[in-house]
């Protein structure tokens, strides 16, 4: 029934989990504050680097890199026209995680509608691969 090989599914899940949780970690690393923009661009860059060195932000970047490598492994197994739309699953994942972990204001009615539509769409794309 499944159109993807087990390894393709594992690498896709690896990509989706790492890139979604990576974003959440980066946002946690911001500690709910805006990165200050100074008059001198040099100071602004220092501000950005200091934020990048926080544990949560660093974890986010590491997860992001692992996600990119997982994407390469997935992409080497599946044609691009089928692989690329799978990224949209990540948008719903980030939306749900933003509400649950970051306590951001999410409209859950839209979130459910998004989940259903993207799930149906992804199934169609998956079945286009025989």
């Amino acid at each position, binding site marked *: 029934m499944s159109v993807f090989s087990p390894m393709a599914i594992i690498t896709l899940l690896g990509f989706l989990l790492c890139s979604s949780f990576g974003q959440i970690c980066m946002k946690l690393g911001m500690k709910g504050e805006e990165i200050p923009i100074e008059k001198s661009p040099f100071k602004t860059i220092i501000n950005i680097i200091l934020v990048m060195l926080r544990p949560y932000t660093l974890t986010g970047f590491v997860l992001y890199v692992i996600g990119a490598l997982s994407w390469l492994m997935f992409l080497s197994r599946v044609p*691009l026209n089928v692989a690329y739309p799978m990224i949209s699953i990540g948008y*719903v994942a980030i939306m749900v995680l933003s509400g649950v972990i970051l306590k951001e204001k999410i409209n859950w009615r839209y979130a459910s509608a998004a989940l259903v539509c*993207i799930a149906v769409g992804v199934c169609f794309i998956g079945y286009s691969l025989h």
Partner: protein
Amino acid sequence: MGNLTFKTGILLAVSLLLASFGQIFLKMGLAGGEISGSAGLIKAFLNPYVLLGFAIYACSTLTWMLLISRVKLSVAYPMISISYVIVMILSALILKEDVNWLYGLAGLVFIAAGVTFVGKGMSGGEK
């Protein structure tokens, strides 16, 4: 936070085209077949097409950030679907992939609706 203007429209077009071509280059660099093992992964990562693909993708992310700092998420998100159509067409034209247009486009219609809902649901605080 506004709607699309001529300037932000160009920003959007550039971001979507860069994202699409980034993926095309990644796939071109993966012509060697299925990656297995860490040595294969490192070899694939260092392929010039793959490196170029990631670089283009990074540029796309930067232009996307410029865009969403100027345009409402509920306006920007549905536009992502355009890149899915571009990638599907380029996959057939450049990569000569066997695209199933009927199932593929039907799937993209649902996904377009889905990312539109994502944009609407995440702009909780926006007017």
